[in-house]
């Protein structure tokens, strides 16, 4: 029946063209992109993500690595691991990318305020956590003691290594770094990230823990956090999943009954209790 109907031409899958304003290699596999949208700031919260398009290759969900307090641009730390990210790695300043988002629920700033923070970053987990670290630096008075644990497989895989000294100074907090395997130049701690926990002195009841890392890390890092006495309700994680839409349609990011793109990627531990698909 040819009843005329209001045609909605907007699509939830339409990206906004944005400009890459700077690119810097931070490891052999990761690059950091500065991106500017034509209409001004992205308007994100620490811990949210965007869907990034390299048109001709596809779209990938990437967590935002900079704080909204950083100004008009935002940063994405992209690991070269698939077709889309390989294409992104070819981009130079001045290139266009498509941006959709920000999507999802970020770190619970309201709940974190007024508490000690224990931030645990395994591997690429430091990318989304950097948005929180920068936020905490810019709003330092909102938080109490801040402790940051950073782990990577090898020294050359440590992300944002040149920023740790400044973070330590600006956070007036403790930063502990470890690698699974050292090299000739490495004089720091060696061991998986959980080996940093025994020497921590925390005011557990006043501490909010934020843990982000690869699937294999959670089980062990969570156990360490709980053994320190941090209550389950004060532990947050950010979960990675396959995502094709960002708007709760494509079905890929579901774990148990929840869509990670909508209810996550950040969850409190108690929200995930009983959801065995959460831990990969």
């Amino acid at each position, binding site marked *: *029946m040819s009843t005329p109907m209001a045609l909605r031409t907007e699509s939830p899958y339409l990206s906004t063209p944005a400009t890459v304003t700077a690119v810097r290699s931070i490891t052999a596999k990761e690059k950091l992109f500065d991106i500017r949208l034509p209409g001004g700031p992205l308007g994100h919260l620490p811990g949210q993500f965007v869907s990034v398009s390299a048109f001709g290759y596809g779209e990938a969900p990437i967590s935002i690595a900079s704080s909204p307090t950083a100004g008009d641009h935002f940063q994405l730390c992209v690991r070269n691991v698939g077709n889309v990210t390989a294409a992104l790695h070819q981009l130079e300043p001045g290139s266009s990318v498509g941006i959709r988002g920000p999507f999802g629920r970020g770190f619970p700033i309201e709940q974190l305020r007024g508490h000690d923070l224990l931030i645990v970053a395994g591997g690429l987990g430091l990318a989304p956590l950097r948005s929180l670290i920068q936020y905490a630096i810019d709003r330092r008075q909102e938080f109490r003691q801040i402790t940051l644990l950073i782990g990577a497989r090898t020294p050359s895989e440590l992300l944002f290594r040149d920023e740790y000294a400044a973070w330590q100074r600006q956070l007036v907090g403790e930063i502990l770094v470890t690698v699974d395997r050292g090299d000739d130049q490495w004089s720091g701690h060696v061991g998986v990230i959980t080996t940093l926990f025994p020497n921590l002195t925390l005011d557990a009841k006043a501490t909010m823990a934020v843990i982000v890392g690869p699937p294999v890390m959670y089980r062990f890092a969570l156990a360490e956090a709980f053994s320190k006495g941090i209550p389950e309700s004060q532990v947050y994680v950010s979960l990675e999943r396959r995502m094709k839409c960002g708007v709760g349609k494509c079905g890929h990011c579901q774990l148990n009954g929840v869509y990670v793109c909508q209810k996550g990627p950040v969850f409190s531990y108690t929200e995930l209790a009983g959801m065995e698909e959460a831990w990969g």
Partner: protein
Amino acid sequence: MALSVIEKKHLTDFVNRLIATQPAVIGPVRKGSKLVFGPLSQAQDLVLDYVTTILPPKKYLLPPQETLIRFKLGPSLELEPVIENTPRIILGVHPCDLRGIWSLDQAFGDDTVDTHYTARRRATTLIGVDCHPDESCFCTSVGSQRPEAGTFDLFLTDVGSAYVVEIGSERGRQLLERYAQTREATANDLALQQRFWREKEAAMQAHLNGDVHLLPLLLDSQRQSDTWKELGNKCLSCGNCNLVCPTCYCFDVGDLMQLNLTDGERVRQWDGCTLTDFAVVAGGHNFRRQTESRVRHRYYRKFQYLMLRYGKPFCTGCGRCTRSCLVHINPPDTLNALIAASEKEEA
């Protein structure tokens, strides 16, 4: 519900007039020994007395592959959404498939509206027809044996020499008024319509041995059931069940480039949660590596996750997954095993 009656000899004229005047008319047509929904060029190709089609009419609302965005690379990136809303009439849709379309309406219409789906859906007129089951149908167990108000424009029930027509929308009423020769329904027509319903329900062979509305709760206690292990050992991860399902709507998205390397399209394609790589992320980690976890996920989608979200089971009882499964996995057997296990635990 407004009712009317079309004599069978007048139905052919009605369908031919629709074909002559409407942009596209779709209906069940023969394809070898099976039936498929396909374009109609003459009323005599339409088969209204049939059990099932290979694919549900979903393919006209959520095509197996569709372009979401057209783009042009260059100094400035050009992006254009592709919203297709060609008016279509789909004839001969069974109550189970109307429920399937209702399910897609919920999934694509809530929260962030999927305009690609909703534009096509709004341009679609649905003319349903009632049916008799085969041994795989179990619509009476999921409450989709009768079409619900609001899910069709017209709905036909065979009463011998005529069809009783339920008028479900203004659009349907206008079509009938303009293109069909009808008469008023008599008490006898209505008696025959009710007899059709009774015979349909009596002919149902496959059943759930419990109330479908209790399944979300029951499934909560059955995540570690041995049933999943058994199904995991059988399932071939072929995705047939996803492919033929009227309520499966998961999709993948990717880019296709023209040979000029300037023009391209962002396309979505049907995906299936039972396929091995459905939950694989970049870098290779598979969040549902085990077959049993994927089979279980499919059942929880249908009878818990989406059911709790939208209020009805996301299974229409159409029996297509039963018919297409190469290793004979089917919802009634699976759910009845879980129901039996749960009753045993309680005893």
